[in-house]
């Protein structure tokens, strides 16, 4: 029997890859007076809702998605958090129909 999963994917620049956006955000924080800020790295957050037989298969698929599209392996690392999810009737169009 298939289950629904909500997978939270974080994509981050690899260590050692220059992050011009992060550097600019850091400068902004320093300007606001947060003198303790040493480094900021900007990444991406994606939510993938999918149907899969079990959690292991959901993880396998999403990790493969990361390698093939969601992250660029030249520049980026990724991490995935998998949660069992429920599908519910959406009240409005464009609202996510899945929740943890």
């Amino acid at each position, binding site marked *: 029997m298939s289950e629904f999963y909500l997978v939270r994917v974080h994509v981050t620049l690899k260590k050692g*890859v*220059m*992050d*011009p*956006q992060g550097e*600019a955000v850091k400068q902004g924080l320093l300007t606001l007076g947060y003198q303790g800020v040493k480094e900021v790295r900007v990444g991406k957050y994606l939510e993938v809702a999918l149907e899969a037989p079990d959690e292991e298969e959901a993880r396998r698929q999403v990790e493969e998605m990361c390698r093939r*599209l*969601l992250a*660029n392996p*030249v*520049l980026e690392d990724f991490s995935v958090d998998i949660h069992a999810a429920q599908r519910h009737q959406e009240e409005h169009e464009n609202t996510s129909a899945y929740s943890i």
Partner: protein
Amino acid sequence: MRFGVIVFPGSNCDQDVYYALKEVLGQPVDYLWYAETRVDGYDCLILPGGFSYGDYLRPGALAGLSPIMTAVKEFALRGGIVLGICNGFQILLEAGLLPGAMLRNRCLQFRCQDVYLRVENNRTPFTGRFARGQVLRMPIAHNEGNYYVDPATLERLKEKNQIVFRYCTREGKITPEANPNGSVDNIAGIINEEGNILGLMPHPERCVEELLGGTDGREFLASLLDWWAVQGLRRSSNSC
């Protein structure tokens, strides 16, 4: 030499490339819609600049999965000539046809200006009309042109002479100030090891007439015709 200009949703330099090939160089050229699955009958495919798929996820990432890209890959693997300009270069990187990836410009500005380029390799189908070390002037217009490769791949690119253009000063010096986007080693354009797939951030199609401010782009594109005149003859004699 028959050219195909691939049109992705969000391409915006396709008509400029078409004009340069048809009106300036007088070559047969067709637009090829991204949903096509065949590219038969063409001698060179060009992926033009623009903002395919709105640059969603990463520039070039989604265009790299377009139906036509399967045919482009097969064409390239058979030795077909493929040129990616700006967003087209980003697509070739994302599709794995060229090594490396693009980061946001180091300056965090969209850079729209003329740049100077030093020809590092003139023994390609794209650069035969230039001398090694010659300085060209071409326009750039991009936000993500900050080319990145890991140090090991960079060494390999150098060793195999795959770096074709580097940003330089008017005098041809490679300096940090001449680098508009932070690219590793001032890289503006590279070619694959086999020498048939080239990607560059500058826009040759925007400098094909004096009226446009320069003609270095015309010489770049015309190099292909020179190469084809020799290579095409060789191919047809081989088939006899």
